């Protein structure tokens, strides 16, 4: 079940969702917009490396193959066709785990905006699910698939978040509950 804008407002008020700084209003009918942050991680093209995500060294390797860039107020960044970089949402999101009695957990999906998509820009591709229990800025995998350079400006709404109700309390070991006929497992 996707939350309407009225339900999103209610969830913010009930602290089922925490967003800082406060998101742009008004919300769309079934989503809220998130803005591009000021920090980017740009691949160092001169480095040749093979990444193996199944091995433990990937996060430390990524630290060495990306360079950080932080834009100042009013600065922008131009992404050339075929180029890829990482960004972050300006907003920090928290989706606390809650039982049904506490008012339900929420999960979310991050999606792009059609205006940017029509320019050939993917602001977030793959792994769109923001799980219940998440806390942090959302990483944006940004790629220009279009034919022309695209200017990216911090604080502009570049993606949207769609919230969904999580039925039941997520547990760390759901097998504990297999075959049970009542909510308490009795």
């Amino acid at each position: 079940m996707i939350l309407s804008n009225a339900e999103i407002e209610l969830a913010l008020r009930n602290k089922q969702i925490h967003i800082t700084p406060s998101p742009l209003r008004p919300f769309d009918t079934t989503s809220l917009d998130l803005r591009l942050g000021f920090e980017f991680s740009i691949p160092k093209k001169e480095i040749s490396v093979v990444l193996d995500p199944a091995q433990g060294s990937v996060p430390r390797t990524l630290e060495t193959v990306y360079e950080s860039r932080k834009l100042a107020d009013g600065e922008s960044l131009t992404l050339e066709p075929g180029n890829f970089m990482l960004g972050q949402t300006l907003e920090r999101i928290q989706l606390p785990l809650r039982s049904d009695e506490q008012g339900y957990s929420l999960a979310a999906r991050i999606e792009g905006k059609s205006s940017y998509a029509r320019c050939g820009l993917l602001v977030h591709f793959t792994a769109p699910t923001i799980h219940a229990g998440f806390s942090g800025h959302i990483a944006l995998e940004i790629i220009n698939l279009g034919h022309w350079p695209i200017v990216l400006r911090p604080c502009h709404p570049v993606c949207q978040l769609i919230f969904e109700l999580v039925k039941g309390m997520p547990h760390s070991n759901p097998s504990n509950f297999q075959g049970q006929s009542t909510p308490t497992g009795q």
Partner: protein
Amino acid sequence: MEKNPSQFWLMCETSNGLFSGEVVAESQTITGQSFSLFADRTSLEHPERNGRNYLRVYAEPSGHDKFNVILPAAPFETGRVVEVHSSQMKELTH
């Protein structure tokens, strides 16, 4: 009656992530498998420092001296739920 997952601190080693508000948090499962994930600095007990630290997680006891932990993000090497030894956990006081 099964308790709902509560928030705990999970022992980890941290280093800088790709963004200033982010760290790489490294820890290991009860079987000794290392895992690493990008986490928000504000999820740490000591957000200002790297090295030995504690990451805020949801967790439930899963047997003698064991906890199932729901990590705040998916690690590169394991699923988002991992089993750790209780010695890696610390009570979180609000």
